[in-house]
């Protein structure tokens, strides 16, 4: 069981890295001038969404021809800070997402990615806390407001997930961000 889990994690991580690399390489040759979007870096907070209850994220925008753009995002979230023994031992949730956008100031977006969770549970053999790492596929379909040259980013998304690559769950989130 453990072996299968790790194998799955490494395979999925490898796929994400390859996808991210390919996307960045592809976009590097197609970069537009800075006339379209001045700020390509976004820090945003998402309530709900891919990080579960909420997450803090960094997103890098990549410009594509016409009204298209894309982004790669990495975030950080937690479910609880202390474990069941009441000691500081936070659960870690790391959303990794690739998004494609269409639109000028008002954009629709489509994305997918993996959520890496590193959470605490008890070992049923000795009751001690142990960390489990798992992957969960997610998708994102939504709307985003980000005016050219503007610093405010607002968004709302439907973010369904396949928890433990097994159970489909409906979920959603609201984003507020700052571009720089």
């Amino acid at each position, binding site marked *: 069981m453990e072996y299968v889990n790790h194998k799955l994690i490494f395979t999925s991580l490898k796929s994400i890295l390859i996808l991210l690399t390919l996307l960045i390489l592809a976009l590097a040759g197609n970069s537009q001038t800075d006339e379209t979007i001045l700020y390509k870096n976004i820090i945003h907070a998402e309530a709900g969404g891919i990080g579960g209850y909420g997450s803090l994220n960094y997103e890098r925008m990549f410009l594509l021809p016409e009204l298209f753009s894309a982004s790669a995002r990495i975030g950080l979230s937690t479910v609880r800070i202390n474990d*069941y*023994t*009441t000691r500081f031992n936070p659960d870690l949730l790391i959303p990794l997402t690739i998004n494609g956008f269409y639109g000028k100031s008002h954009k629709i977006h489509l994305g997918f990615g993996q959520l890496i969770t590193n959470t605490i549970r*008890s070992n*049923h053999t000795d009751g001690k806390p142990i960390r489990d790492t*798992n992957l969960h596929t997610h998708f994102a379909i939504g709307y985003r407001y980000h005016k050219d040259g503007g610093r405010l980013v607002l968004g709302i998304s439907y973010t369904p997930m396949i928890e433990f690559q097994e159970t489909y*769950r409906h979920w959603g989130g609201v984003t507020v961000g700052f571009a720089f």
Partner: protein
Amino acid sequence: MKNSIFLFAFILFLFSCEKNDFDIKNLNKNQVKALGHGGMGIGQTYPMNSLESILNCLNLGADGTEIDVQMTKDGVLVAFHDQSLELSTNLSGKIYNKTWAEIEGARFSYPYYGNYQLIRLDDLFKNIPNQDNYIYFLDCKNFQPNKDSTYFETFNNAIIEIIDKYNLIENTFVEFKSEILIQKLQAVRPDIKQFIYTDFANALSLAEQYNLEGLTVAVDQLTHEKVELAHSKGIMVATFNTHSHKRNIKAVEHNVEFIQTDRVKHLVKLLKD
């Protein structure tokens, strides 16, 4: 304006310092025991009856916990609340129709991304440090529709085995909903302390008839008079459904002996401060 702010702050300070002084009179040396409801309770960040939930509750200073108990087809006791697995795990079906091997590793559905798993009662007690320091209510969920003598015998033997293995006779109360189950356990082990869990009138009558330790009634069905009536007959009272601070306070004011709360932290603070 400045004075108003000071006055407001002062009032706020007074309220924050408010202390609940309870005049507790009950059959448990005038003490109310704070128990978790399946550990941390309904709607908390750990799923009810998971090892994590129960250990968290005990680590927060509770006097003990209620645990829901069901039995698999092959006679293994499992800590689980719902009638069907699909209500709160990634599996489906009824526990009494499955063997332990079929449900071992079942994962609770909530909270999202938690990898908390179903646990056998034996493993649960094995992992509680100093088990005999705590109080346990074993809430027996006998959902099996056709209970014959073999079922009663297997269930009772499994309960007895756990109680004896972990030396829990002094601090464990077995909760049943039906008369037949009370009779069957009492017939083989009269020393095991039992609570009846049904509506107040019925529970009181059965508790008297079988000389039980106590009865368990939801807090919204309790009144001060009902608790006094039970106490006058030497019957202790446990309550549950205290899923708010207000209900915790209400339950303490009723002078019950045991509260199986969904707000563990609050009740522990309320009773131990």
